[in-house]
């Protein structure tokens, strides 16, 4: 299957004068079957890239909305195995880019038992690397293009960058209001790719009525440090929140999770949610 790279999807949208829309949805949410049809609807209603959440028992970067949805997703059987099995069947019909967003532990545990069998008496780092290798190979086969790992700072990401690169996957950096220009530069030089996830607020995921003014400073630093498109996330629930940003700081993409989850929980349609963002 032939799918444009994450950067190409965003660039192509930009050339057509629009922002790339990146919804986030936890796997198996709101229900195990409904998840896949919701994904299709998102893709058909303007999502350029979809972030599938890999639910985890202890989501420290998430606010109440996403954390609660992740709990439901876990109860519904949301896991890497569920995602891989579903994508093997359905990926070809999804015309958008696809990345997984999840915490370190489920990713490194996916291939653990096999990694132990392959290599006896090796270091922990080697087991983790082999385990990630097993996962990345499978992800590449179903055209997952990147990973966002909110509890993986640059300092711990060396083997991740190495293994993902081997399979043509990209590690997407998360930076925020307290990330210095130098640190952003370090991320860029380490080889992160796709787009830069710019966290709008010093906090967890969740809707805010307005974005803090420091967003402009964060975006300014990110523009200077990265040669990648910027995707703004955390706190978004309306396109009007971006109105005050000067043209050169408008992000190339926007990410929304909590507001979409709330919308779906209230029984509204995907099309109705996406509509204001598509304008």
């Amino acid at each position, binding site marked *: 299957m032939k799918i444009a790279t994450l950067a190409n999807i965003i660039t192509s949208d930009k050339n057509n004068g629009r922002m790339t829309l990146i919804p986030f949805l936890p796997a198996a949410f709101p229900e195990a079957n409904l998840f896949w049809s919701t994904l299709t609807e998102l893709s058909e209603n303007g999502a350029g890239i979809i972030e599938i959440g890999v639910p985890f028992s*202890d989501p*420290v970067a998430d606010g109440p909305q996403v954390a*609660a949805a992740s709990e439901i997703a876990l109860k519904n059987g949301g896991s890497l195995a569920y995602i891989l099995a579903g994508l093997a069947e359905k990926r070809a019909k999804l015309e958008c880019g696809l990345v997984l967003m999840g915490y370190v532990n*489920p990713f490194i545990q996916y291939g653990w*038992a096999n990694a132990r069998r392959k290599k006896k008496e090796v270091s922990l780092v080697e087991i983790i690397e082999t385990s990630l290798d097993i996962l990345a190979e499978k992800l590449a086969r179903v055209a997952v293009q990147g990973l966002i790992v909110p509890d993986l*700072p640059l300092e711990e990401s060396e083997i991740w960058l190495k293994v993902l690169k081997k399979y043509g996957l990209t590690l997407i950096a998360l930076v925020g209001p307290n990330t210095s220009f130098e640190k952003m530069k370090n991320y860029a030089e380490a080889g992160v790719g796709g787009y830069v996830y710019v966290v709008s607020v010093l906090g967890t995921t969740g809707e805010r009525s307005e974005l803090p003014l420091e967003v402009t400073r964060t975006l300014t630093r990110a523009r200077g440090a990265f040669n990648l498109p910027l995707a703004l996330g955390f706190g978004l629930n309306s396109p009007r929140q971006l109105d005050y940003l000067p043209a050169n700081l408008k992000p190339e993409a926007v990410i929304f999770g909590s507001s979409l989850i709330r919308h779906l929980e209230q029984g509204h349609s995907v099309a109705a949610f996406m509509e204001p963002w598509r304008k």
Partner: protein
Amino acid sequence: MNGYFGQFGGRFVPELLMPPLVELEHSSAKFLNRSDFKEELSELLTDYAGRATPLTFCPAFSAELGVKVFLKREDLLHTGAHKVNNTLGQALLAKKMSKKNLIAETGAGQHGVATAAAAARLGLSAKIFMGAVDVERQRANVDRMNLLGAEVVVVSNGTQTLKDAINETLRYWIAHQDDTLYCFGTAAGPHPFPELVAHFQSVIGLEARDQILKKTGTLPDYVVAAVGGGSNAIGIFRHFLNNQEVCLIGVEAAGTGEPGCYNSASINLGRPGVLHGQLSMLLQDEAGQVLPSHSISAGLDYPGVGPEHAHLAAIGRVRYEMAADADALNACCLLSRAEGIIPALESSHALAWVIKRAPEIQGRTVLICLSGRGDKDLDIIKNALTERGLKL
């Protein structure tokens, strides 16, 4: 590697938490070894918390077991457990860093109370995050924290226990890092907490080593401590690590002890994994989801363990064994009657190991870290005895 004990440790946190962790790391390096900091902390530990704690020989308990048992009496410290060694240290560090607020997680409430006390003493505000289940079963400690002027925040997500309280404290810290320091309760979590907490708790071993040398003229054959997150254990072990002739025993909580039961024995029954910012031993399912933990002792009820313990287990320097709920309960009753000391159920796990192994270690000298007093556990002890058809 930075922040690692052998292959364990690290700093698996959101990028947004890196700046406050780096700030804490730098401030620790700057202040901890300064003479004014050491003097102020020493004064707090002596005049406020009640250090040095005694080393108590147990004649009746020893005679019954055929083992020479010495207890390091952290139960006699202010607030009733070793926790205050760490909270005074971190609260003082917060003052030096010009932070106004302390936040902390608590399971049983001991660390919460110790944080609230240290904050009150040093003029800081304190906000304590506690799982809803723990709030229900540890009411008295919630009242203590409130009386000490701390705000108790009830955490109602996940399993509503310690691990979720830690998650919530980390979330809060992301948003309030400018004026707030996270006073972490055990020698676990992201770097530099495991090192920082071990540093403040190592006063236990420093004193105990000196005291037992004075009393017996030699080092003990065994040093035994209970391990949940592992702060009292690392505190007493550190000053014996270089003496290979001293056998170090960490005792994990096996839960009820039935096969497949929920437990808190991550080194014995878990495998490596990442939780709360650290790569360490972890109780988890096949897919890497963290399992609920259980122990009769709320202070050991944690699905992970500090990375230094995972390392000491991996290199074989410390032996980690298990004691079950019933063994700890029995040990608690035995020590209470033999010596007139009611141990916390946490420390009772260490006592239980000595009772079980007594036939193999006849005539040996054993130093046990009595990390806390058992008054807080009275209801649990009473209920557990009643369930077994026994009385106090």
